[in-house]
């Protein structure tokens, strides 16, 4: 069950091997069938995932009547005006910039601070370590809306109500539990031998963290960073109470107004158009960073 010292007795690596070499002497016919089946399942899941989303995109081009009367057909007429309406009525453009500022700064901040905490919790023994760890875990488990009113007064007291930096700090603080929780377990899986060697060479604790462990933790950092980005991008309750000024609304507030309106006057098409506008950049961010994950792995220091 141990993973900290990976297979010290393993056979010498055959790095020159290529997949094609192994194809001939490798899997049996049964395994190949299995491979075929599993590939089929991958395709099935991909279809399951994409169809509803494609549907959402198509829906964004339909008229309200069509959404309900023929929900599963192609739009008879492509209504680009839905996007115009979403853009103008929901102020998507301005909110988009607000969201970008707040979320990007908060993600950078939380990744740095979270990694520091997680590293210390994962690799050092000191009094109060478990208490701190579980305090962070507890932070993930408490329903935010119960703390909103006290939080409002805390933020008001430090004079940061309705400001970007106030929201950034609050976002950072509320993303910390998740970040610490995930990165702690990630840092635990990293081999310690490199750090030990570096420390023997006279590297400081902080130096070992910044120069060795942080680069090693890159895949985990990127995954958690993306998840934080998405989580904060869709965060709704915190800005609702802490950003009362609609000049500084974030995107999710704007979308929520659109969504909440659906119960009263249906403008589903604008809602879906707003969704697509909000979704595309997020997807782009993910796709872009997806590459970085692969690159991070290519560094290959983990081996």
């Amino acid at each position: 069950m141990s993973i900290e010292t990976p297979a010290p007795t393993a056979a010498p690596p055959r790095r020159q091997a290529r997949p094609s070499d192994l194809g001939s002497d490798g899997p049996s016919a049964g395994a190949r069938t299995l491979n075929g089946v599993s590939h089929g399942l991958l395709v099935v899941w991909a279809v399951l995932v994409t169809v509803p989303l494609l549907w959402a995109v198509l829906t964004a081009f339909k008229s309200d009547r069509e959404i309900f009367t023929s929900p599963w057909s192609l739009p008879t007429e492509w209504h680009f005006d839905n996007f115009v309406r979403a853009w103008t009525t929901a102020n998507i453009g301005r909110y988009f910039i607000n969201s970008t500022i707040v979320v990007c700064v908060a993600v950078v901040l939380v990744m740095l601070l979270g990694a520091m905490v997680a590293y210390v919790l994962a690799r050092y023994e000191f009094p109060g370590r478990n208490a701190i760890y579980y305090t962070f875990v507890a932070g993930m488990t408490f329903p935010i809306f119960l703390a909103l009113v006290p939080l409002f007064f805390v933020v008001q007291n430090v004079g940061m109500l309705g400001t970007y930096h106030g929201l950034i700090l609050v976002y950072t603080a509320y993303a910390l539990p998740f970040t610490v929780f995930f990165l702690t377990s990630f840092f635990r899986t990293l081999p310690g031998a490199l750090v030990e060697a570096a420390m023997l060479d006279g590297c400081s604790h902080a130096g070992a963290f910044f120069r060795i462990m942080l680069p090693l933790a890159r895949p985990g950092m990127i995954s958690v960073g993306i998840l934080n980005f998405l989580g904060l991008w869709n965060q709704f309750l915190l800005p609702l109470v802490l950003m009362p000024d609609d000049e500084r609304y974030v995107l999710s507030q704007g979308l929520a107004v659109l969504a909440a309106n659906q119960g009263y006057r249906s403008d589903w098409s604008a809602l879906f158009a707003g969704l697509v506008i909000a979704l595309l950049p997020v997807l782009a961010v993910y796709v872009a960073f997806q590459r970085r994950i692969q690159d991070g792995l290519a560094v290959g220091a983990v081996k």
Partner: protein
Amino acid sequence: MRYGKYRFIASFLAIPLLLYVVFVVSPYLQAVYISLTDWRGFSPNRNFIGLANYAELLGDGRFWRSMWHNAQLLVVVPIVTLGIALFLATMTTVAGRRGSAARGGVRGSRFYQVVFFFPHVVPLVIGGVLFGFFYNPEAGLLNGLLRLVGFDWLTRAWLGDTTFALPSVMAVLIWIYVGFYYVVFSAAMKSLPTDVFEAAVLDGAGGIRTFVSITLPMITDAIKTSYIYLGILMLDCFALLQVMLPDGGPDGSTEVVAQYLYRAAFTDGRFGYASAIGVALCLVTLLLAVVVLRSGRRDRVEF
């Protein structure tokens, strides 16, 4: 060395902890205090009533019923989600490489990496709207498909049926979260040393054998972490259910604790009681985290 270690720990923890205590811990502590009062939430009036809210909670059938629904979600959704995610991650990372040092995975694995994650990018509010349409008994895709393949007897009013409403919601949750854990597991699997797999292949181990005796044990930490995090989400589930079945589902068969809590706070004006529910929920979640983390735990802290 020792002195340097503690100074290092303190310097890494100070700023994040300060931020966390001010913006997260202190509002939550005030919420805990509120749970000991009869506060109604909209004026400064409140009386200290000790543990009366908690005493009431013990005998509150509706609370326990909601808790039971959360418990079902807690068991079913993580097992199925993590199972599928593990399977897909294995297919696209480990299985494909068949002992080679190349990290390609099956053909198109990059494509799957991107696509599987899509659902997680969709805000829950929108996901709820989307699947509301999906389950629509008349115009929805699900019944439409069933009719198409001649399975008319299977069609039903999914969200209006006491037996099927909760499983229908579970299916949506699984759809949303598989991609997230797929990314987590893929990152974990890719950080595993290649040598072991090569050795296993040399020893003639098959795909399933390799998975069970090598991959699985080596990513246990990632699985545990994921189980806890998904478990925490299942103990919440507020956003999606509030969109799909805002009134607790047919005969209250899908009401979860967070919805009950929300109702206690905002429609009953009983913030004190709602806070007590929140504290109880928080304790249950922490308990879950501790149990899972302690199970088969080995202390891996070094230095």
